[in-house]
């Protein structure tokens, strides 16, 4: 009976692809149904599976086949436990995907079968060991706030202007701000990706734009022109917004906000940011450009607190 229980979901999945497994699925179900209704299961399906498996193992090693045959019930229970475990893992995976857009949870950028291209989870990774004891990032007055400054909840985003995944997340960030209509805002902290050209320079330039009150427009222009990012472009974009170019150029060349950018990046490292974009919503961490519903689930919980 134990093996019928294991066989049922296995055959059920296989029967999607091959009709020959449908009869076996029905047999396994009948067997299970009869057992739970205290009737005798006469299909012999478990015995057949035992015989076939033993026969296959004989080809490789009669000795191992003998061990398997003699300890069949133990193997059945092991398979059953593995089945229950895999059900549990699958359930958690599906649950995580529905809630967070990734099977492994909001903090993961790992592979998820439901999102094979990783569109919800890909990040610009950095090569460092995430500290065991992380320090949650804090809001700082010198970092820009996107949205209503008086909002009840502030999401801290670690992003990079040269990171395509941070760019992908921009539309979601805007949607969050629009959807919550003043209740939620976002503080953007620059997180330098060392192997991305102009990662530091673009972060410095954004702070220089903030100095002239042009941060929000410049922030948007940086992402819009991400593919052709270079030093001259950082300056020309500032010019297009009517900034004081002498002030801007000096600010950028002198690396005026170097320590500010370094502090933000360091804060991210201490908070266990694996790459960009990474978001902190209260104590929850969201890694990658997850879909809106992922943020909404967490934000709604935070707003209830």
């Amino acid at each position, binding site marked *: 009976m134990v093996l019928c229980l294991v066989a049922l979901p296995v055959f059920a999945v296989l029967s999607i692809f091959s009709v020959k497994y449908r009869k076996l699925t029905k047999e396994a179900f009948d067997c299970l149904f009869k057992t739970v209704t205290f009737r005798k299961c006469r299909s*012999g399906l478990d*015995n*057949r599976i*035992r*015989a*076939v*498996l*033993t*026969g*296959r193992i*004989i*080809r490789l090693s*009669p000795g191992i*086949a*003998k061990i398997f*045959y*003699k300890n069949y019930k133990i193997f059945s229970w092991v398979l059953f436990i593995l089945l229950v475990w895999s059900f549990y893992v699958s359930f958690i995976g599906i649950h995580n995907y529905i809630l967070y857009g990734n099977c492994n949870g909001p903090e993961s950028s790992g592979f998820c079968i439901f999102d094979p291209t990783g569109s919800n989870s890909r990040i610009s990774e950095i090569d460092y060991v995430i500290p065991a004891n992380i320090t949650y990032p804090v809001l700082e007055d010198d970092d820009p706030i996107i949205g209503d400054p008086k909002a009840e909840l502030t999401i801290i985003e670690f992003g990079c202007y040269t990171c395509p995944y941070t760019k992908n997340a921009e539309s979601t960030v805007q949607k969050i701000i629009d959807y919550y209509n003043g209740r939620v805002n976002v503080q953007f902290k620059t997180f330098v990706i060392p192997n991305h050209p102009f990662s530091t320079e673009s972060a410095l330039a954004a702070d220089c734009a903030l100095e002239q009150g042009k941060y929000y427009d410049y922030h948007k222009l940086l992402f819009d022109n991400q593919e052709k990012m270079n030093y001259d472009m950082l300056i020309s974009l500032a010019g297009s917004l009517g900034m004081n170019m002498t002030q801007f150029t000096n600010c950028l060349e002198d690396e005026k906000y170097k320590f500010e950018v370094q502090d933000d990046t360091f804060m991210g490292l201490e908070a266990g940011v694996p790459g960009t974009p990474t978001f902190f919503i209260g104590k929850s961490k969201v890694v990658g450009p997850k879909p809106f519903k992922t943020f909404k689930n967490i934000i709604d919980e935070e707003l209830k607190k």
Partner: protein
Amino acid sequence: MNVEKLREDFPILKKPIIYFDSACMSLKPRQVIEKVSKYYTDYTACAGRSSHKFAHEVEIQVAGTRKEVKCLINAKRDSEIIFSKNTTESINLIANSFGLKPGDEVIISDKEHNSNLLPWLKLAKKGIKVVPVESNEDNTFNINNFEKAFTENTKLVSVVHTSNMDGVTNPVKEIVKIAHNNNAAVLVDAAQSVPSKEVDVQSLGVDFLAFSGHKALGPTGTGVLYGKKEMLEKLDQFLMGGETVVDSTYTGYEPEELPARFEAGLQNYAGIIGLGEACKYLKKVGLKNISRHEFKLNKMLSEAFADNEKISILGPKDPEQRAGIFSFIVSGMDIHDVSGMLSASRNIMLRSGAHCVHSWFNKRGLKGSVRASMYLYNTEEEAQAFIDELNKILKF
């Protein structure tokens, strides 16, 4: 008999299989397959009804098969050969047409296939007594018990010729003699014997004999009932319909001549024509050669496991008495496990279960046996592979 050359005639043997389930279903040679196919591609038609070219061809071919079957079992007349669906239908024809009345008795052996048990048990509900004859301890036929089973009410003896369960061949000639001395007719279930040994109905003296085409290299859905002309003429018609009557009115009908009166409705012409080709093939190979070959393989298997305490062979120890059937039980191991393992490990195709002889196994409290049934296309290498694989399992 050149088995390797002969195997080339069986397209299915190109697959990496060891087919040891011929007692259930024989494989088909190319000649039979082509003959069946030819009916569908060259002259698909009805026999005995239409008068066009195709219909004539079908009639010729069906008549040819009847002659082939007649020759195979040495019947006296073509009209003594009735085509049916299988052995089961042939036996049911007799059970329903013989005219048994309440109080009449039918003797059977104690290891009949359900096909030769259930038709009689059904009649038992109408007051006909079914008398099973207990076999000897080694499963051979007990003539003394048989003789004692007769009463003045015994009207029919219906016994298996070669058992599908253990391969034991019953002494039909002696059975017939005793039965006739007691004024009882004899029906023989020859499903296993006709494909593998020379069966001469005249020499045996049987009144009726039934066998299937599918166990004798022929297509599925083909069977034969042989009956002595005078016995067949006494039978009531069983199935009624097209071609069983010469004429009919709203109040009556005039039965057809033999054998048409027992072949109701449109027949399995393709199958029957294929059966004719199978008979030709068997005769070409030679039934004596087939018997010898089966014995040789069974001897190999029997000797290999003769001293193995874990194996119990059903039937007598002497393989010569068990035709091509090696039926066994492995102590401490489920029969289906054994056949399943051999199938999975080396594609050895066996049958496990009660082989439709539930009554014999039930009486002994057994679930069944594993049966290796060999035929003309099996080789000594295959027998050796079976021995090697079974030996691995016996070490469990």
